[in-house]
């Protein structure tokens, strides 16, 4: 019953969106429809609710709200169960309401219960603790995930080495967090749009960005973000969470044009404290946009541990306040991540709305090559966290099921090594952009007022030669 109602609702939402073009529908108006209000129980945005007393019991627990999270065989670990209680003021209102006093309809109060589920399929020891999902059922699929993670890690090592030798600028490593990018890149469709932060190299590689592009970017050349991969993807975003509102705009455009595409926005745990993120998830929930937010919760925002970032028990629950489901996934379990992101994408594509996935991982590296993490966290903590890293556990599992041998491993390492070296060679042999290029992409055509300055750059750069 609950599932049926839940599936029905997005359809209605979409038909309202499409069907009432000529009527004045404001941002909040199309939520405050009478058919939602007639139910006693409402969740944050009305979408999760519409519950009769009978349906309530089965529907309240899995606020993750995908079909799978209600499936008993799905490996769901309940991490946190939150309940907001009815305030005294609202109790008074309820009493008044019972006596028949008028209460403005938009001020109806509700008690909100939510659960944040934690998903894991492959544990740190490489043991399956859940059912393999469709998107990772075949050994080939698992091997592909494994390959991209290994490739990303080798690339990472090389980039840091280049930086230490003075051949690369400051570089942000993705060490220990490769599973997130690998999962995202594996399940996104070509015409979806990725809004990365700066540790999603695996996703970018899978979407056609080359290693040389990434090296060019951190090596101080804007051409690195003029990649040949998915040309509509956004570039790396250094200002924290600034890309979240962009993703909302793009998702709005997708919905406006009635396209079955999804915007995927990745930010870090620190980013969830930013206003950009809060405004973005709020709007995404308001308009039920086709967008998936993925929070790379690697435990540290430079020197700030997750516990001191917010008083919220989980980052996933911020989605509940924005009116859509949030969940935690073991961010070192590439299988669970792939599954959950795949389902979130599917849901977004079907018009059901956004999802927030908090991927719990750990930053095994410094924040960037300019950082020294030993100033604020213990070596012991880092050492312990190596036990949970994503690559080893998948290799263990692949070995277990006889799909990966030592010779496969050596072949992979050798081929990744060659690929990385080729990329480095390409990067080191790419000439810098001409100095006047600083003017050539400023506007579509150079304003007359800037011609003199451009000429000056040309003149002085020639003088410097």
């Amino acid at each position, binding site marked *: 019953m609950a599932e049926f109602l839940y599936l029905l609702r997005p359809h209605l939402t979409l038909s309202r969106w499409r069907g009432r073009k000529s009527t004045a529908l404001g*941002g909040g108006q199309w939520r405050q429809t009478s058919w939602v209000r007639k139910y006693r129980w409402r969740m944050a945005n009305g979408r999760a609710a519409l519950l009769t007393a009978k349906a309530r019991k089965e529907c309240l627990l899995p606020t993750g709200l995908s079909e799978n999270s209600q499936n008993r065989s799905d490996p769901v670990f309940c991490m946190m169960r939150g309940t907001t209680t009815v305030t005294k003021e609202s109790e008074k209102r309820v009493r008044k309401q019972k006596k028949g006093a008028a209460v403005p309809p938009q001020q109806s109060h509700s008690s909100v219960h939510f659960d944040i589920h934690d998903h894991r399929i492959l544990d740190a020891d490489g043991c399956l603790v859940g059912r393999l999902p469709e998107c990772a059922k075949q050994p080939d699929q698992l091997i592909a995930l494994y390959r991209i993670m290994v490739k990303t890690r080798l690339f990472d090592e090389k980039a840091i080495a280049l930086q230490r030798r003075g051949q690369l600028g400051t570089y942000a490593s993705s060490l220990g967090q490769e599973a997130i990018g690998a999962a995202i890149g594996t399940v996104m469709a070509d015409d979806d749009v990725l809004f990365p932060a700066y540790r999603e190299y695996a996703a970018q590689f899978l979407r056609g960005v080359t290693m040389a592009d990434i090296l060019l970017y951190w090596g101080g050349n804007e051409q690195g973000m003029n990649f040949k991969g998915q040309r509509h993807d956004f*570039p790396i975003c250094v200002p924290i969470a600034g890309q979240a*509102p962009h993703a*909302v*705009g793009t998702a709005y455009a997708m919905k*406006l044009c009635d396209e079955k595409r999804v915007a995927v926005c990745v930010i870090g745990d620190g980013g969830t404290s930013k206003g950009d993120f809060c*405004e973005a998830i709020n*709007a995404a929930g308001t308009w039920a946009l086709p967008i998936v937010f993925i929070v790379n919760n690697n435990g540290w925002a430079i020197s700030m541990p997750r516990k001191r970032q917010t008083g919220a028990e989980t980052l996933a629950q911020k989605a509940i306040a924005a009116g859509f489901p949030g969940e935690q996934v073991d961010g070192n379990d590439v299988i669970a991540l792939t599954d959950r992101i795949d389902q979130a994408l599917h849901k977004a594509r079907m018009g059901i709305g956004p999802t927030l996935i908090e991927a719990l991982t750990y930053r095994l590296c410094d924040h960037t090559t300019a950082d020294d993490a030993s100033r604020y966290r213990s070596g012991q903590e880092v050492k312990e966290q190596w036990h949970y890293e994503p690559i080893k556990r998948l290799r263990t599992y692949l070995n277990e099921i006889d799909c990966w041998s030592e010779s496969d491993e050596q072949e992979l390492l050798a081929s990744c090594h060659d690929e990385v070296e080729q990329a480095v060679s390409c990067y080191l042999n790419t000439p810098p952009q001409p100095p006047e290029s600083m003017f050539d992409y400023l506007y579509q055509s150079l304003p*007359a*007022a800037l011609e003199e300055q451009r000429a000056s750059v040309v003149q002085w750069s020639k003088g410097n030669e």
Partner: protein
Amino acid sequence: MSEVTLVDAVNMALAAEMAADPSVVVLGEDVGVNGGVFRATAGLQQRFGPQRVLDTPLSETLIAGMSIGLAAEGLKPVAEIQFMGFVYSTMDQMINHAARLRNRTRGRLSCPMVLRAPFGGGIHAPEHHSESTEALFAHIPGLRVVIPSSPGRAYGLLLAAIRDPDPVIFLEPKRVYRLVKQEVADNGEALPLDVCFLLREGTDVTLVSWGAMIHEIMTAADQLAASGISAEVIDVATIKPLDMNTILDSVAKTGRCVIVHEAARTCGVGAEIAAQLAERGLMSLFAPVERVTGYDAIIPLFNLEKEYMPSVGRIVAAVKRTLEG
């Protein structure tokens, strides 16, 4: 052709471009059902639907940021911020992202968006509603800053701003919103960006301004004419990038220049114009360049705002000083 106010002209331009180009979307706080706090978007939602005329949550950062995402997808967002005093939340998005997107992707992505905001004092508005901080945006490479001063230029320049392939900050002088009416043909014809408009020819002094202050300098020019002083009047209109050639040509003729702006004096756009006159037009000058500006003080609440803003009297006195020199 009918006589319209500046705010009507903004509305006309938005409607004309939305009708002509289905990729134009309007977004902002209260722009839909309410038609905008100044009614600049009145009737647009009824005509073009709630998807294209979008009431956003109360989130200025989001409005600017999502405009970037819309623009990158090939739409042409025209976002409204209710007052210049609330525009600062958008600055991270406008400076770090909108202004840089084309450059940092070497042209792979671009950001054809317009951020509209009413600005300036003189309407007895509450605190934070009367600022003129256009110079903040004029400082940023990659942005255009456009300021109309009449209904006709509001119509033509807004069309040009929407059609421009790069981000434009479009600042509307709200004191002039309903001050004057002018016949404006709703013919979809844009005016050029990046150029000054010569509003009145003269021989003795060049008066340079933009926005609401154009009305003060035109009145000053009338008064000066009565005492035999011929003032040339230039509406800068696009303050970034700046069309200095028109100003230099004028000053070459008159030998005197008075720059007038409502914004605070230090690092105002007037400082840039004066600096460029010193660099490139010094030999034409018979007298030092004068600036008549808002003071380097916070614009007072409305009891005193008149004392803050440049008056016709201050402008005329500055002109007379240049003639004495």
